[in-house]
């Protein structure tokens, strides 16, 4: 990323979308919308002072909604270019018409520009490479896995964020049910504190403790004051809130990190209801995640439920065996039929083990769904404006003997945009797509291919 950002021949256009493509191989004209980020990229030093002071917090999509970010933000810490962006919809000043502008005040580089507008760029290029990646399958459409009902059933991508040292839990495997509990306690405590502060003021004003006041009030001896009705109500609220909070806090204190993990393979892939294809890389990422979880806490045990465990790259089979031997990973051959939940929010996995010919169930702390690789949401629109065809699964169509060529000359595709594949294969393909693009550009006259640099 850094290399791409620093390369003298790469003109990096982030936060941009292609809107129109015309022309033909060797001389394409491309219209690109550079979206307003309300931060001047050339001035912003990426220091992050604005983020520290921004008063608005929203769900952090980079952390799969498991954490929060501010309205002015950087998608992730190592992001290139190292600059910020205002999420206009959630910004008090831009989206909600309130007076704020705190970021502009704290920015010593004067990079904040609330007046910034979208810009249209016209590029002339000889070839186009599509590297738009993929989306993660949404498992909530599989009723039996209860992803939308059971907190402690997460997708592999969510699990990655939980495992990450820069993620919302700093790499500790706190369970989503506990995170929700913590958030609930925080909200309740905030409300309670508000009530308590009001009560404190009343106690001070009237020079007596609430218990004393209530005794008098209930006995009708408190006398007349406009505060008294409110005081009594507040006291009632306080007692009620404390009653609700106590057991929650007890549960919070007793919470433990997830130690017994289940990984379920082929969630949305190799499933005739959703995607027939195999997503190729999920077997290996489950093994990897189980191994990292075990590295983080060597008490961790994992069960990987799979049909075939597809470890087909260099060193993959050996890696899988090592996971079984030294990272407490158990490989269970069987398709999971259903996931239910017990009272302590532990998911229960029901499955048939084909090797022992038993229908069985086991309780876990956390279930991780190895979700399928599906075409990214914008693919049909992009295919339309590029004038290229998609295959029956919705990925960009290629030929086995010309694996980088789309159906339109001069437009190439690499990585998961053409179908699921792992990182080494994607990186190799990226070079191949560059080779094809260079071949095309080399064979057309310089004048036509010279633009775009």
């Amino acid at each position: 990323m850094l290399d791409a950002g620093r390369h003298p021949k790469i003109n990096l256009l982030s936060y941009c979308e292609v809107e129109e493509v015309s022309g033909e191989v060797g001389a394409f004209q491309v219209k690109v919308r550079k979206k307003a980020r309300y931060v001047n990229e050339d001035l912003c030093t990426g220091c992050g002072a604005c983020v520290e002071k921004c008063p608005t917090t929203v769900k952090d999509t980079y952390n799969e909604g498991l954490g929060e970010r501010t309205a002015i933000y950087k998608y992730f810490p190592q992001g290139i270019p190292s600059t910020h962006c205002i999420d206009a919809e959630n910004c008090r000043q831009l989206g909600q018409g309130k007076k704020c502008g705190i970021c502009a005040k704290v920015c010593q580089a004067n990079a904040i520009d609330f007046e910034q507008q979208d810009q249209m760029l016209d590029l002339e290029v000889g070839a186009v490479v599509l590297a738009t990646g993929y989306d993660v399958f949404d498992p909530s459409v599989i009723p039996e896995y209860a992803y939308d009902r059971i907190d402690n059933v997460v997708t592999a991508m969510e699990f990655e964020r939980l495992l990450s040292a820069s993620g919302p839990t700093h790499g500790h495997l706190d369970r989503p049910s506990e995170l929700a509990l913590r958030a609930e306690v925080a909200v309740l405590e905030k409300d309670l504190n508000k009530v308590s502060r009001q009560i404190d003021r009343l106690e001070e004003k009237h020079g007596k403790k609430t218990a004393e006041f209530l005794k008098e009030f209930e006995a009708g001896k408190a006398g007349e004051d406009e505060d008294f009705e409110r005081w009594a109500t507040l006291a009632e609220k306080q007692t009620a809130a404390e009653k609700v909070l106590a057991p929650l806090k007890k549960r919070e204190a007793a919470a433990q990190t997830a130690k017994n993990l289940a990984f379920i393979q082929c969630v949305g892939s190799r499933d005739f209801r959703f995607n027939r294809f195999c997503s190729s890389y999920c077997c290996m990422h489950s093994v990897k995640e189980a191994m990292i979880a075990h590295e983080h806490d060597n008490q961790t045990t994992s069960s990987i439920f799979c049909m075939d465990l597809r470890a087909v790259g260099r060193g993959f089979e050996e890696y899988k065996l090592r996971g079984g031997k030294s990272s407490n990973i158990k490989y269970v051959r069987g398709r999971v039929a259903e996931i239910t939940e017990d009272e302590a929010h532990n998911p229960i996995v029901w499955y048939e083990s084909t090797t022992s010919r038993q229908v069985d169930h086991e309780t876990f702390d956390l279930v991780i769904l190895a979700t399928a690789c599906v075409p990214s949401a914008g693919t049909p629109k992009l295919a339309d404006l590029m004038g290229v065809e998609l295959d029956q699964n919705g990925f960009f169509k290629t030929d086995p003997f010309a694996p980088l060529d789309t159906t339109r000359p001069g437009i190439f595709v690499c990585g998961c945009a053409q179908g699921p594949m792992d990182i080494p294969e994607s990186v190799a393909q990226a070079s191949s797509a560059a080779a094809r693009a260079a071949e095309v550009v080399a064979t057309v006259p310089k004048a036509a291919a010279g633009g775009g640099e």
Partner: protein
Amino acid sequence: MAEDLRIGVFVCDCGSNIAGYLDCPDIAEYAKTLPHVVYVKENLYTCSEAGINEIKAAIKEENLNRVVVASCTPRTHEPLFRESCAEAGLNPYLFEMVNIRDQCSWVHMQEQEKGNLKAKDLIRMGVAKAALLEPQEPIQSEMDPKALVIGGGISGMTAALGLANRGFQVFLVEKAPELGGLLRHLHKVGPSYVNADDLVASQATKVEKHENINLLTSTTVKAMEGYIGHYKVTVSSNGVEQQFGVGVIVVATGAKVLKPEGFYGYDGKRVITQFELEELFRTESFKAEHVVMIQCVGARDEERKYCSRICCMTAIKNSIAIKEQNPEATVHILYRDIQAYGVENEALLQRSKQMGVRYIKYDQQRPPEVQENIVKVYHHLLGRDLELPQDLVVLSTPLIAGEDNQSLSKLLRVTLDANKFFLEAHVKLKPLDFATDGIYLCGNAHYPASVREAISQALGAASRASIPLAKGVMTVQPIVSVLANEDACRGCGLCVALCPYGALEIVRTDKGRKVRVISVACKGCGVCAATCYQHALDINSFTDQQVEEQIKAFLSG
């Protein structure tokens, strides 16, 4: 020291990243007390335009001849600061960077006083080293704009065409008398069921006709010397040797099929390999009615732990071919895991099942038994043995590394993995490069691959190889190994053996055997300098003397 040293130190606040945790004004005051320091400036952001202008102005106005910036990481910012020095007329290698952020303010947020002391130590060390820095000039080397591709299978042909179409001269060396490699022995190519012969013929014709490709069949590589841009290659064609020069090399030597001697009564007649089955198809002599295929024969076992990636797909492809020829024939595939990864492969697996191919999972601990006219296998869903009729047993064996890999890896000074396949520089970031500059790999030489994968890797390797070729001139940072004390060198060759990049060689000189550094190939890793008993080698900008002064400066604190 003849020169009057005038060192300038710039202390960066990095907004609050450094100044939020360290006392930058205090650190700047301290820097003023260090030897030869004539100018100190604290900046909010040294890397901002204002900061850069201050460096440039100070070089001119204060006649600075060394610059030290105490800020973030050289990984991101050293090039910028070096460039700025150069713009102000100072040799860019008279610049030294001190990291007081990543390894100081960030990690010592909780102990700011100690962090402050550490920042001072680091700056004192940086200044001590800066005093000894010497100007360097970037190393440039012309590129011989030609390529050598070793291996004329689908990978080698595709890589050669990829480079030739870009206008580069290519020598394509194939040890067999004709092009095509393993593909020449196959029947059809999945998933599209194109005739392998047609595919080979169409690529081979393009190769033979291409004006930029010099095709050398029945030829092997005998010797190789040199480095990126200047490889000298000796090849032998039927005993006749010739030599030529190339700038880059692509290794596409493929792999071979394991012959499963001793497995399941393999005899090449009733018990054959998938490879031999393809030959039966090609010669239209396939007649069997009851076929049993066994997967992972000689793979994923103690001897060969790896999964060979393509054998499941070969079995599926051939099972479909059998069913197409004779829908009444029975085909059973006994497998451990069916590796039909991806979109096309899984679709073929499903198609074969629709055509009636039966799949039975077997346990490695309880392998099938081949007996006369039957194969016995334990079916773990039924919980009992099945007896499958057979008049042909087909064993799916892995691809194994070619026998030339070992000798070729020595010739090219590149690495093999535990299974003797060629090993890339980095599994994720550089899957098609070797650690040695100017040599690339693709196809089965790297690891078993389908035709689709081999083609895409070959084009990728061609792309990687074309980068130095297109540049024409190699420019390398001069932070490389130098023979600082020629008299001390005894020509023992220990450094040559340890250099991971082939950047050292022993040459005969008037003074006897001495080491020579091939600067363009050197990455400045320092292994040689650290190894040399005689302290004959040094690394520019990291000389023994500079490092010693840094240590002394640290200890004097």
